[in-house]
């Protein structure tokens, strides 16, 4: 080693000594010169953190109506004072809070890591419990009453599947990962959104908890000087939902289902509907029944889980169904665009058709005579569309179905869980059944049967696409987000996901067919007296289960006004078949009456 290096090594060692001397000096300062002070502070170390839960962001409807707010509630907590808890304290709390002693002990055990934080035993306890604990304060050292915001769903089960609910349950990994992208870290055991907007927008709604650094006295009450960090409330969310419309829709769904049940239809009970703005994709109403009351969700859960009508499932997006004749516009448009038929081209309907050894018929074997595509939509003639299906072939038909957003999620990301549904196709059949496609099946597919299965949201989006000439907007529920200071954080922008390349004349032809449906001679003629011109289509989807043929699903899609559509809607009534006619139609009518403010007769 050269001389220079030796010199530098020496200097380095002096630096090392200096570092150690500094550290030792600081140690001596703390441990020797200020020993008494720190000893006393450690002896009765009562420095604790009391978190202050941030009020969660509120949720509003389009018109500013409050849908979800917070109310103050009392929480019973334990503060560790360093000497554990007496048997009596735990026994008394178990009795008072209706908990098992073992459960309380387990919670204490699980908090071992963070004993400087209070342990929340039970939230939202009654005033009676609070006063009983207050009376016995001196006998219950370490028991603390905290005031915490409790989630309040103002209108009970109104819009429940969209809003979601809160819980302390386990968050699915994919949700946690989704949140992580926004930089949100979720703490296990904290109340957290479990479905709907509450789940998907958790990072925005949550806010930032604050807290107090306090000295507690020998009974665990906060005393003396303390430092406070104010919580930052979560962001408020304004939905695209039109509250009066949503309310009328939910009411109409309930009335219809009750009506069906009263008429002796023991299968009825579920229904769903979605109303979209075809000019941007905003969801104006989205309802399905039955749902749940998010306020009492955890209490009701055992019953909800057992209910055969599946109140836990959001049937507008998480379930898909055969949609029957509402599918026929896909076939009509494909046939026109592909040149399989012209606007004036006719097909003769004798009520029955036999092809490829399969005999198929029109509804109730009605013979419609010779009709063109406009009339075929108006009358919902099966024979015409069977013929179109055969002319197009399954692959072209499936292609157009996919163009309309069937077979894949239509892109709603403001709440999670959208299913993709099924497009009847060669690929699907070979994948699921390992069987080739038979031409006779193409006929079924052309009228919306076969494997075709579609969510109510997809159906409404498809209706909107007919209304706006093939533009697939991403459906959305969140109009804007505003932080606690009132600054906008996010404002929805319509987003075009896809644009169909179809001649404008063909859209007009299909719309013309739909415009005749609610007029005399059409399948929806009960709407003939409606003061605004409407384009519509009825649907009936036959269902066969183990019991044999059971009541069909009833559907109705519509958009209005015909010339410049403002709303597009799809209504689905599960097992809603009834002798009085299409049971979804009066629901659609009710929606349009409320939207266009037309007085009911």
């Amino acid at each position: 080693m050269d001389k220079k290096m030796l010199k530098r090594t020496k200097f380095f060692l002096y630096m090392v000594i200096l570092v150690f001397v500094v550290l030792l000096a600081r140690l001596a300062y703390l441990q020797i010169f200020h020993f008494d002070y720190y000893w006393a502070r450690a002896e009765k170390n009562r420095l604790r953190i009391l978190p202050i839960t941030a009020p969660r962001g509120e949720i509003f409807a389009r018109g500013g109506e409050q849908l979800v707010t917070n109310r103050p509630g009392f929480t019973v907590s334990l503060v560790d004072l360093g000497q554990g808890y007496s048997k009596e304290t735990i026994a008394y709390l178990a009795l008072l809070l209706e908990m098992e002693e073992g459960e309380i002990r387990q919670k204490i055990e699980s908090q071992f890591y963070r004993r400087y934080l209070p342990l929340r035993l039970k939230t939202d306890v009654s005033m009676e419990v609070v006063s009983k604990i207050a009376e016995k304060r001196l006998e219950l050292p370490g028991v603390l009453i905290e005031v915490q915001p409790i989630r309040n769903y103002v209108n009970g089960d109104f819009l429940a599947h969209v809003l979601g609910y809160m819980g302390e349950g386990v968050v699915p990994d994919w949700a946690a990962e989704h949140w992580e992208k926004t930089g949100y870290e979720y703490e296990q055991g904290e109340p957290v959104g479990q479905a709907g907007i509450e789940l998907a927008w958790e990072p925005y709604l949550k806010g930032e908890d604050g807290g107090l650094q306090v000295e507690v006295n020998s009974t665990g009450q906060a005393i003396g000087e303390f430092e406070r960090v104010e919580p930052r409330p979560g962001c408020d969310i304004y939905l695209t939902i039109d509250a009066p419309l949503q309310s009328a829709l939910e009411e109409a769904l309930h009335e219809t289902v009750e009506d069906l049940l009263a008429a002796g239809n023991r299968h009825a009970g579920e229904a769903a509907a979605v109303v979209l703005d075809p000019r941007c994709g905003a969801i104006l109403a989205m309802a399905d029944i039955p749902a749940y009351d998010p306020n009492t969700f955890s209490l009701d859960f055992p019953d909800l889980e057992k209910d055969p009508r599946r109140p836990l499932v959001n049937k507008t997006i998480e379930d898909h169904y055969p949609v029957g004749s509402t599918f026929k516009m896909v076939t009509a448009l494909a046939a026109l665009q592909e040149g399989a038929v012209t606007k004036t081209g006719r097909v003769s309907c004798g009520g029955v058709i036999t092809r490829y050894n399969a005999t198929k018929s029109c509804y109730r074997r009605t013979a419609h005579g010779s009709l063109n595509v406009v009339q075929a939509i108006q009358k919902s003639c099966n024979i015409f569309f069977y013929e179109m299906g055969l002319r197009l072939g399954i692959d072209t038909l499936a292609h157009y179905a996919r163009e309309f957003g069937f077979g894949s999620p239509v892109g709603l990301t403001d709440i999670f869980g959208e299913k993709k549904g099924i497009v009847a196709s060669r690929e699907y059949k070979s994948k699921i059944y390992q069987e080739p496609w038979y031409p006779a099946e193409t006929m079924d597919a052309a009228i919306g049967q076969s494997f075709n299965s579609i969510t109510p949201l997809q159906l409404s989006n498809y209706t909107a696409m007919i209304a706006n000439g093939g533009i697939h907007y991403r459906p959305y529920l969140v109009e804007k987000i505003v932080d606690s200071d009132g600054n906008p954080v996010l404002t929805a922008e319509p987003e075009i996901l896809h644009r169909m390349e179809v001649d404008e004349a063909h859209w007009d032809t299909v719309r013309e067919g739909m415009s005749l449906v609610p007029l005399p001679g059409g399948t929806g003629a009960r709407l003939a007296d409606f003061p605004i011109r409407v384009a519509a289509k009825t649907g009936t989807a036959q269902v066969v289960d183990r019991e044999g043929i059971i009541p069909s699903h009833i559907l109705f899609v519509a958009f209005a006004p015909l010339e410049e559509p403002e709303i597009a809607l799809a209504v689905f009534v599960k097992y809603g078949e009834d002798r009085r006619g299409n049971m979804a139609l009066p629901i659609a009518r009710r929606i349009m009456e409320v939207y266009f403010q037309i007085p009911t007769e």
Partner: protein
Amino acid sequence: MLDRRLLKNFDYQLLLFMLLISIYGLLVLSSATQGISSNDPLFYVRKQAVWLSIGAGIMMLIISINYLHFYHWSWYLYAVNILFLGMVLFIGKEGLGAYRWIDLKVFDFQPSELAKVIVIITLARLLVDFGEKTESFTAVLPFLLHVFFPMLLVFLQPDLGTALVFIAIFFGMLYMAGIPWKNLLILAGVGLALSPLLWMRLHDYQKLRLLVFLNPELDPLRYGYQLKQSMIAVGSGGLAGKGLYQGSQARLQFLPAQHTDFIFSVLGEECGFLGALLLLLLYFFLIYRIFRIGSLAKDKFGALICTGVATMMLFQILVNVGMVLSIMPVTGLPLPFLSYGGNSLLVNFISIGIVLSIGMRRHKIQF
């Protein structure tokens, strides 16, 4: 295999100090982790003991390798290092808001720890190769770039503490290599002048952690609270401490990271000033022996590696203990051989292994 004649120059004292620190660490760890895992009170101690054994094994292996091989492998090591650090940013496992680990199923590999020792080796070679023309200021630039890339990748994880270790290693080794004072001072000055730019790139929580030791009220619910509790723990230990397993602060788990970053506060509380003095003396002798080996090394490469290892240990001790005593910002650097954690332990063993290897091979073997 290992030549018996090599053992003549084996530095048993360094080995002894290292083992004493490790055993001391295990004792304090057993107190710090009391009750964290209720069904197995020795869970952490056992795991740490396993890491110690593995580390010792790897160290033996390293000792048996002639350290001059590292000179030849230097560029491969540098490439592998960059690769690992780059991988963390893409497939890294998230923890505490940063991406630092790669999940190897058996354990979570933390490339930034290994990066420290690799940078020491590769920078040593670079300094040896270009060591003669170091008078001009521009001669510093290759060394600067060499350390900059791995440091940047670590900084992006983000892991500010470890990134700072690279800076310490850089200055320590360049100084020892004979780079003129003046040039290093200019470089440090430029670095300080640019630090506001760095400051703007920091996350809010990082800024808060850096400032909170000056004013605990900045973050009274987390780090401010931790630092207060840490000082109460250390201060209440007094001259002789409360006795192992007797610390009320440690028993109440006031410090969330008391088995990792804040283990020194448990030691301070339970073993007192004397216990802390003992540990610091052991550390001092450890570092002294490393320098001694460096000064006796047969070549500049070995001497510079020793400097790098010593600087790394010294810096981590200063920053960690300083943090516990509230005279340094909160950066989350582990205390060598004491903090719980396999990655840091392994890298410390590897470093000491290389140093021992340098010490053994300081003379040409005499037959």
